[in-house]
C-alpha cells in the first residue's frame, strides 16, 4: 500500500509547490493536507509563538498521526522549534519545514545563498541553519542573504506567475554561491524559473522534504 504523507501547514499557499514536488519526486505517495490557518492568525505582532499555539500544534500533529500518516511534513517557517518539541512523542517521522533542505545545502557546500520573501522567514531559517550547524559540528560556513519583500504581496494576491518571475530576477544577483536555498515553502514553484538560468543548484523546502521523507519511509536512495 502507498505510504501516506501528511502535510501540516498554516496556509494553503503551500499546496501548489508541494503538489509539484510530489509529482516530480514521489508520485506514488498518498499526500494528505491538513491546514489550520489559525496558527498564523494568532501570531502576535512580534511573531512570537504563544503557549496556546504550541499546544494547538502539538494536538494537530498527534491528530495527523492518529489519522494514519506514515510521515508528517510541517510546512511553515515560524514553528521549527515547537514542531521539534512535539515530535518527540509522535510515533512516525515528523520533519520541520527546513531541515531536509538545510541538510542538502550543507552537502552541497559551505557558501550558501538564502533567498526569502519575508524578513521573519529569514530570521527563522538563519536560526534553523545555525542550530543544524552547531548540532553537526559544522563551522566556517557563510550565508549570502537576500530578502525580496516585494514578491510576497504578489503571491498573497494570487499572482503566482508574477511572484515566481520576481523571485527569479532577484536570484540572478545570487550566482556566486555553492548552493541557493529558497526560504518559503510557497517559493517552491519559483525554483523552475530560477533553474532556467543555470549555474549553482537551487534547493526548495518542498522538494527536499518530499525526497527526504521518501528516503526515510522507503529506506532507499531517491
Amino acid at each position, binding site marked *: 500500500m502507498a505510504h501516506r504523507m501528511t502535510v501540516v501547514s498554516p496556509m494553503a499557499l503551500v499546496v501548489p509547490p508541494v503538489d509539484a514536488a510530489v509529482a516530480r519526486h514521489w508520485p506514488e505517495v498518498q499526500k*494528505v493536507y*491538513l491546514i489550520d490557518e*489559525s496558527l498564523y492568525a*494568532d501570531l502576535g505582532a512580534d511573531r512570537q509563538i504563544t503557549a496556546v499555539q504550541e499546544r494547538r500544534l502539538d494536538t494537530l500533529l498527534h*491528530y495527523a498521526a492518529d*489519522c*494514519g500518516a506514515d510521515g508528517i511534513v510541517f510546512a511553515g517557517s515560524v514553528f521549527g522549534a515547537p514542531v521539534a518539541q512535539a515530535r518527540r512523542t509522535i510515533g512516525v517521522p515528523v520533519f520541520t519545514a527546513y531541515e531536509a533542505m538545510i541538510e542538502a545545502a550543507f552537502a552541497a557546500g559551505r557558501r550558501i545563498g538564502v533567498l526569502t520573501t519575508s524578513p521573519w522567514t529569514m530570521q527563522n531559517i538563519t536560526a534553523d541553519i545555525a542550530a543544524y550547524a552547531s548540532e553537526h559540528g559544522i563551522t566556517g560556513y557563510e550565508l549570502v542573504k537576500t530578502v525580496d519583500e516585494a514578491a510576497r504581496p504578489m503571491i498573497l494576491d494570487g499572482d503566482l506567475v508574477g511572484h515566481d518571475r520576481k523571485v527569479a530576477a532577484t536570484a540572478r544577483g545570487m550566482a556566486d554561491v555553492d548552493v541557493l536555498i529558497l526560504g518559503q515553502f510557497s517559493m517552491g514553484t519559483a525554483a523552475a524559473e530560477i533553474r532556467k538560468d543555470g549555474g549553482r543548484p537551487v534547493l526548495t523546502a518542498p522538494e527536499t522534504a518530499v525526497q527526504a521523507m521518501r528516503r526515510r519511509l522507503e529506506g532507499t536512495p531517491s
Partner: protein
Amino acid sequence: MSKRPRLVIVSPLDLALAAIGKAFKEEWPEGECVNLLDESLYADNDFHGETPQVVRDRIVWLFNYGIDCGADALAFTGSVFNPLIRELRKKVSKPVVTSFEGMIEEGFAAGKRIGVLSSAPQARDVLAADVKTYAAEHGIALELDARCADGAFEALQGRDDRAEHDRLIVAEAGKMQDCDAILFAQFSMGLAAAQVSARPGQVVLTAPVTTVRKLRRVVEGAGAKAAAE
C-alpha cells in the same frame, strides 16, 4: 462585540478555500475567516456505503478543535457529508452551518419554485436532496427543477476550459426561467453564476456567499440575543 468574530471553515478539499475567502471579502470583511482543511476525511471515506466511524469521529474532533481555536461559528464545506453534519453538529457547543443551508434559505425566501443547477450529477443530487429535506421540514409545497449542465464538468476538469464550462452553465440557466431561485451546486461555479442574467424577480445563488451570509446571521443573531438577555 469589540473583537472580530472568528469563523472556522472546515473543508475536506482545498477547492473551496479561495471561493470562501473571496466571499468573506465581498460579504463580510469584518468576519475573520480561518480555514481548517483535512483531506484525510475524503481519503478514508467510503463513498458507496456508510460513513466510517473514524471519519465521523474526525469531523467532531475538527469542530471541537475549531471551537478551541476561538470559533464563534463554523461551516463545513463538503456537501457530500451534509446529512451527517446536521447530525454531528448537535454534539458541539457552537453553531455549525452546512454548505447549502444558507443558499436554500435564501432560495425559499424568493419563492417555492427552486432550480438546482450543477455541472455533475452527484452534486446535483446532494443539493436536490437537501432542498427536499428543507421543504419537508418547513411544510413548503416545493416545485423542484434539478438539472445538470451536460459537459461542463468535463470541460473544466478534463480540458481546463473555463470559458466553455461557464458558457454551458449560463446556457442551461437560461432554460430555467420558471424558477424563483437558481441554486448552484458547486463551489467552482461562482464565476459562471455572475454571468447569468436572471429574469426580474429571480435570484441566482451560490454556496460560498450564501454560507458567509448565513454565518453572519447566526453570529449577529446570537450577539443580539445575548445583548437582549
